[in-house]
């Protein structure tokens, strides 16, 4: 297990690329008034397996920016736990997954707001093609201590083929009334109307699908610290899809 302590009043970045990482369990504490940014990138080759656990604890007024992206591996499991332990801490969490062939992603994201005035914003977007499957368990717990907590979770999945499967369990567990908490989830395929709109403008179906998928995901990785590494892999995956269809 790797433990990491980010000292108070500092700013730090960490990038975990599973293909180059030997550690599978991380415990990170972000000190008072510190800012921490973590990028987790699943980029193993497509016959490997991986299972990683990350626990992050946030102290007073600490801020966490986390981006988890899944593109590689045959089967990948991530257990992410973000604990807002002290007041005023906030987190911005993004998850992106792109599965094709028979890839399987199992993502468990738990956010615990155990202190007053804490904020968590979680957004997950995924695309699944061929017979890829994914499970996204995103839960928000606001404890009795979480007065004025503010937590929102959105997850959206685009299924590109009839063999793809998604199991989504967004959960809210709220034990305080002075909170704002919500979650939403959607599962759709590429909208016929969108395809038609593009078609009417001379864009063929495969290019249109590519544009739509790219637009769907870009929102997430656009501001990422790691955009130059994530983007080419996502784009090459998108290319493969549209060529096949």
């Amino acid at each position, binding site marked *: 297990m790797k433990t990491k302590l980010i000292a108070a009043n500092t700013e730090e970045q960490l990038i975990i690329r599973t293909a180059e990482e030997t550690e599978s369990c991380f415990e990170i504490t972000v000190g008072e008034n510190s800012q921490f940014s973590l990028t987790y990138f699943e980029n193993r080759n497509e016959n490997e397996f991986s299972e990683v656990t990350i626990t992050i604890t946030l102290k007073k007024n600490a801020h966490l920016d986390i981006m988890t992206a899944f593109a590689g591996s045959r089967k990948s499991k991530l257990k992410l736990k973000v604990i807002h332990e002290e007041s005023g801490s906030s987190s911005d969490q993004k998850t992106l997954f792109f599965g094709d062939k028979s890839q399987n992603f199992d993502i468990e994201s738990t956010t615990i707001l155990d202190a007053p005035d804490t904020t968590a914003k979680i957004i997950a977007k995924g695309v699944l093609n061929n017979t890829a499957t994914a499970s996204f368990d995103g839960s928000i717990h606001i404890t009795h201590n979480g007065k004025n907590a503010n937590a929102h979770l959105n997850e959206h999945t685009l*299924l590109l083929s009839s063999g793809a499967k998604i199991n989504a369990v967004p959960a*809210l567990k709220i034990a305080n009334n002075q*909170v704002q908490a919500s979650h939403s989830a959607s599962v759709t395929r590429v909208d016929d109307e969108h395809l038609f709109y593009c078609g009417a403008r001379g864009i063929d179906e495969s290019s249109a699908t590519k544009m739509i998928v790219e637009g769907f995901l870009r929102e997430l990785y656009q501001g990422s610290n790691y955009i130059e590494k994530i983007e080419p892999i996502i784009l090459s995956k998108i290319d493969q899809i549209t060529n096949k269809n």
Partner: protein
Amino acid sequence: MTVTLDYIKNLNRTTLDDANSSEYVNHAKKGLSREVIVAISKDKNEPEWMLEHRLNSYDVFMSKAMPNWGPDLSLLDLENIIYYARPGEVVSSTKWEDVPAEIKNTFERLGIPEAERKYLAGAGAQYESQNVYHRLKEEYGKMGVIFEDMDAALQKYPDLVKQYFMKCVTMHDHKFAALHGAVWSGGTFIFIPEGVNVDKPLQAYFRMNAASMGQFEHTLIIIEKGGQGSYIEGCSAPKYENPSIHAGLVEVFVKDGARFRYSSVENWSRNTYNLNTKRAIVEKDGTIEWIGGNLGSGCTMLYPCSILKGDGARAEHLGIAFANKDQIQDTGAKVIHVGARTTSTVVMKSISKAGGVSVYRGLLKILKGAKGAKAQVKCDALLLDDISVSDTIPDMQIAENDVSIGHEAKVGRISEEQLFYLMSRGITEDEAMAMIVNGFIEPIVKAMPLEYAVEMNRLIEMEMESLGAVG
């Protein structure tokens, strides 16, 4: 037609919590054994296959473990429950005058016969394990509609019952379905023939009276092609120290193009474990609507389920749960999309107060082949103070890409601004709270028949009053 709602105005906690004397249970046997089951079956003079079904269910019940998820059931002592009790020498009657005075009074205080006279197509009343009253208006009988208590239906229409009984929810489903299969008694049987529209609702009211009772009524509803109907079920029980259990089972078969609405207002006392199972199988172009209010009982585990088997089948679930002090309302909706172009809508509202716990536990399953399926789930939770709890746990399993699925949930409290607005107009804080809560649940109450809507509002008001000021 003018409708007076006096019985609702007079409805208060005492009306619901008061018990009649229950000497008849003094010699009733507690606990469950093969002998008890054989005795129930003999007492009811049932056909051989039913006894066999009961005993098989008992074996399944013994072999299955208690659920390892959801609320804590450790205080429910299944050995200490009375599984079958008849309130003296009572038989089911079609005349209100024949019902014993004491039982009659109970139901009269709850407003049952008055409601029937005014707007129901038929009504039934069950007291402990025994139906005491069942009547269908003549005009509907002539159209071939059957509305009977379940025990009578088994005697009169054995083949029809055998064809459908526990075929939708089998004894292997879960431990309490098996328990139900072993000790079921009473309930309602509804059969609506092809193309018949029963335009007025049918109603049944279930009352437990004695302490440590178990009520296991079985409701079997069959709507033939193109038929239409609706059914309302009300439940209550007096308050005791010892836990009692309600493990009813509802099976609805909606055939091609048929439509059925099932409404229930559950108001068991706080010592009741309400472990109910409700499920519908909907064929091509059929529609099932579930409308439920869960207000009573200390612990509820109830997840009405719709299996949309035929193409174009539709399900609508509307529900309210109110969790007050020491209550756990673990409710939800399950929808399984099998057919193509099936659609479902789930709208659930929950209110938690004084430390109450309300949980939305849902399942949305889209099987492969359910092309063009559409599903929307919306859960809103209102927390009235900072010691109450609200959980939302929807499970979505999607194995088809030609679908459109949406889920959203919100948890919040009554806004200070709304309270201030009302109070600045001379409304007290408590009244303002009650008004806002009534507004919150309105979309669901609106879907109920008028009398039930008024009763629902009154029950909510009672919950709001019960512990003085809220917030």
